[in-house]
């Protein structure tokens, strides 16, 4: 993967709407600086610019991520601990990961561009869980609860933020 494509992908992941243009500008300036100052200085400048571009959108997204993932995740964690305490058993492994994936999948369902892929992944995961059998039942129930919770949290986030 080239430097240009990599930084463009990073910007897109950070939610920058003009990721392609920013990455293009940086690429052009990098080429000019390398000719003037040499490779090492140009790389230092490039890395610093990429970091600067990423900090602001990531900082803006942190409260949103907290609202959409951390709060429901903490609530689910408490809920599962309570349920398993009543059963005098230890929570099965992987519930935390499944909760995170379910919450993210729920949030993705509200984004039209990601809806089809998410539905496909969820259907595949559900089919795999049913094929595994009773050992995967806790994970299936966890997904059934966390996906709608993720969608609800994302909706709430859109209203608030």
């Amino acid at each position, binding site marked *: 993967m080239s430097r240009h494509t990599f930084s463009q992908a990073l910007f897109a992941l950070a939610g920058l709407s003009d990721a392609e243009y920013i990455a293009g500008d940086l690429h052009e300036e990098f080429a000019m600086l390398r000719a003037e100052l040499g490779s090492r200085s140009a790389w230092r400048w490039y890395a610093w610019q990429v970091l600067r571009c990423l900090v602001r959108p990531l900082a803006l997204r942190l409260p949103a991520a907290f609202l959409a993932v951390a709060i429901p995740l903490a609530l689910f964690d408490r809920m599962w*601990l309570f*349920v*398993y*305490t*009543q*059963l*005098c*058993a*230890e*929570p*099965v*492994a992987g519930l935390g990961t499944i909760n995170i994936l379910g919450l993210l999948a729920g949030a993705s369902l509200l984004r039209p561009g990601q809806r089809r892929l998410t539905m496909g992944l969820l259907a595949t995961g559900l089919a795999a869980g049913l094929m595994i059998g*009773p*050992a*995967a*039942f*806790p994970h*299936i*129930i966890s997904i*059934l*609860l966390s996906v*709608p*919770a993720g969608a*609800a949290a994302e909706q709430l986030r859109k209203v608030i933020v």
Partner: protein
Amino acid sequence: MKKWLLRASFGAAGVIALAVASLTLMGLRDTAGLSTSSIEIDATPETVWPWIDQPDKFKQWVSWVVSVESPNPDVKGVGRKSIVLMKEPSSPEPVRIETVLTDYAPPMRLSADVKFPGLFTGSQTYQLKGLEGGRTRVQLDSRIHYTTWIIRLFEPLGTPSATKKLDQDFAALKRLIEKTSTTAAN
């Protein structure tokens, strides 16, 4: 605002109904409450048997067991009762499980009715099978029936945990017996 509240309420109710329906369907399977585990141990059935039958050895490999006491120690075999105190990590108080032997055929089979008042009743059967080379296959079939409906609803969540615990306990049993056998041989 009112419309949003209504939507959220219906959504939450729908999710809960879906989860309850799924749990109910999962709980209808034939193997509901059944946990099975087995392991091969490098020791004869006669060597393995005391680790299942004798309380002081039993509590060394079954996790969470604090003590095993017998209210009728004079009874050998069928009818012998035991009170097993277990300290489950997430629970502040130890749980008290009552067992009564219903089948006793040393060194091959041991069955017991188990009861946790207010939570479950059930039965457990240990079967030992001698294999070639002085090895033993130990199998435990444990069937639990939760006595209250709300806990019974969550059976599909509890049984995988119980099965995992059996597997871990059997791994500990294997380690203990094989370590003891090696030490004795040396």
